[in-house]
C-alpha cells in the first residue's frame, strides 16, 4: 500500500509514539492515582484465584520446613509450652474474675453496649505496595460487604485500613505506608498523637503535646474519630473506632518516638477486616434553641469589603 520509504518512516515513528503514550500514563498516574489503582485492583481481582494457586507450593514448602525444624527441638518446645500453659491458666482465672466484675458493674450502671462489629477473615493474597508503598491485597470472597475505611487487624493488633474494594479482594493500606495517618491515644501519658507511616517498619508519632511527651514502653491505642460535620455514610479515612491496640512506644533516638506494632506488618497471613457501624455523633435537637452561626460566617466578623471602607478614614 505504502512505498518502502513511507513504511520505514512509519516504523521509526512507532517507538516515539509509544514513549509518548507511556509519558501520558506517567502523568495520568500522578494526576489521577485512584483511577490507575482502580484498574490495578480490577486486574488483581481477576488474577486472585491464580495467585492463590501460585502461593500454594511456597506455603507447602514452608509448612514442611516448619515441621522438620520443629522436630529438632520437641523437648525444649514442650517444656516451654508447659510453662506458658501454667501462666495462661493463672491469667484465665484473673480474666474470668475481671469479666464477672465488669458484667456486675455494667449491670449496675444500666450500660448500653456498643454495636458488635461485623468482620470477615481472609488470606493475604499478595503485597500490593510496590517499591515505595506498604499495602496488602486481601482475599475476602464475594459479597462480604467490606467497605472503604474498615479496619484490618491480625492476631496482634491493628495493621491497616481498607482503601480499595474489588469483587473478591480488598486493598489494605498498612499503618507504616507513607500515606497512612491514624489518630492515637497513649495509655500512660494520656496524650493524643498522630501515628504517621514513613515506609519503615516502625511508624512515627507526630503532633503530640510538647508538655506531654510519649513515655517509652507505653501502649498505643486508636483514638475514636468522628465523621466531619456535613459528611454522612462511610467515607474513607473519616471514622475510626477507638481502643484498638496498635503497639508500644519506643524511642529510636532522643525526641523521635516511634511505635513498635503488635501486628505483623511484613508477612501477615490471616487478617480480619472489621466493619464498625457508624455511631450517630450528632446530639439530639433542642427545641427553642437558636443555632449559633459559625464565627467565620458571622457578618460582623467577616472581612470588610472595599465598599465598606470610607475614603479618608484610617
Amino acid at each position: 500500500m505504502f512505498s518502502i520509504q513511507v513504511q520505514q518512516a512509519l516504523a521509526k515513528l512507532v517507538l516515539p509514539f509509544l514513549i509518548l503514550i507511556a509519558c501520558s500514563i506517567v502523568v495520568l498516574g500522578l494526576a489521577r492515582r485512584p483511577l490507575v489503582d482502580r484498574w490495578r485492583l480490577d486486574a488483581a481481582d481477576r488474577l486472585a484465584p491464580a495467585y492463590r494457586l501460585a502461593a500454594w507450593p511456597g506455603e507447602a514448602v514452608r509448612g514442611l520446613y516448619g515441621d522438620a525444624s520443629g522436630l529438632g527441638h520437641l523437648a525444649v518446645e514442650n517444656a516451654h509450652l508447659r510453662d506458658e500453659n501454667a501462666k495462661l491458666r493463672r491469667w484465665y482465672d484473673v480474666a474470668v474474675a475481671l469479666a464477672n466484675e465488669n458484667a456486675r458493674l455494667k449491670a449496675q450502671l444500666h450500660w448500653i453496649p456498643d454495636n458488635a462489629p461485623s468482620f470477615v477473615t481472609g488470606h493475604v493474597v499478595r503485597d500490593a505496595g510496590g517499591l515505595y508503598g506498604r499495602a496488602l491485597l486481601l482475599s475476602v470472597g464475594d459479597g462480604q460487604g467490606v467497605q472503604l475505611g474498615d479496619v484490618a487487624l491480625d492476631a496482634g493488633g491493628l495493621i491497616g485500613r481498607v482503601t480499595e474494594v474489588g469483587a473478591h479482594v480488598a486493598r489494605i493500606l498498612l499503618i507504616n505506608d507513607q500515606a497512612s495517618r491514624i489518630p492515637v491515644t497513649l495509655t500512660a501519658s494520656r496524650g493524643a498523637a498522630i501515628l504517621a507511616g514513613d515506609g519503615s517498619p516502625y511508624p512515627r508519632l507526630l503532633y503530640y503535646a510538647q508538655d506531654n511527651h510519649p513515655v517509652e514502653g507505653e501502649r498505643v491505642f486508636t483514638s475514636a474519630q468522628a465523621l466531619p460535620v456535613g459528611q454522612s455514610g462511610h467515607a474513607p479515612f473519616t471514622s475510626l473506632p477507638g481502643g484498638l491496640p496498635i503497639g508500644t512506644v519506643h524511642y529510636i533516638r532522643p525526641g523521635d518516638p516511634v511505635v513498635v506494632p503488635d501486628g505483623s506488618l511484613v508477612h501477615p497471613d490471616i487478617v480480619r477486616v472489621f466493619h464498625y457501624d457508624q455511631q450517630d455523633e450528632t446530639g439530639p435537637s433542642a427545641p427553642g434553641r437558636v443555632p449559633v452561626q459559625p464565627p467565620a460566617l458571622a457578618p460582623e466578623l467577616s472581612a470588610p469589603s472595599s465598599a465598606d471602607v470610607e475614603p479618608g478614614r484610617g
Partner: protein
Amino acid sequence: MNHLLRERRGKTQPGIEPEPTVKHRADVAVRDAVPWLFMAICVILLSAPTGLPGGTELMFGVSVGTVYFWSAHRPESMPVWAVFLIGLLADLLSFGPPGTLLLSLLIVHGVAHTWRYGLSRINFIWGWGLMSVLALSLTLFQWMVACIGALRPMSPVPSLFQAALAAGIYPTLSVLFVWTHRTIVNPERA
C-alpha cells in the same frame, strides 16, 4: 561450501527456495516469540505471591535485562509492540508509580536497538556497564516520580537496591539468553 552455507541461512539470502510450509512457519514464529513470551511469563510469575524475597525489585531487573539483551542481539524477537504490551501488563500487575516501568522498558529498547551494531562489537563488560547505568538512571527516575506523587522526599534505598539487583542479575540472564539464542531461537546460526 558456500552453497551449503547459503542454504542454511535460509530466507536471509536471495535465491530460489521452496515455499515454507505452515508447520515451518509456526515453528519459526514460536521460536521468534520465545524471548518475549519468557518475559511475559516472568512478569506474571514475579507478581504472584511465590514468597521469593525481592519479587517486586526482581521484576524490574528481569524485564530490563531481557529487553536490553534481545533488542540488541535479535530485534526480531523483541518487537516494540511486545515491549509495550508486556510493559503495560507489568505496570498493571505491580503497584509502583504508574507508567514508569513501561517507559523504562521502552527507553531500554530504544537505546539497545539504536546502538545494536556498536553493542555487538564491544566487550561484554562494557555492555554490562551500559546496562547498569541505564538501570540506575531509570530506577532513579522511578524514585523521582514516586517522590512527586507522594509530595515529599522518600528514601532512595529501595531504588538503589532495585538497580543493584538489575545489574547483578544481568550476567546470569545473558548466559541463559546466549544459550537460548543458539539452541532455541535461532538454531541455524549455531
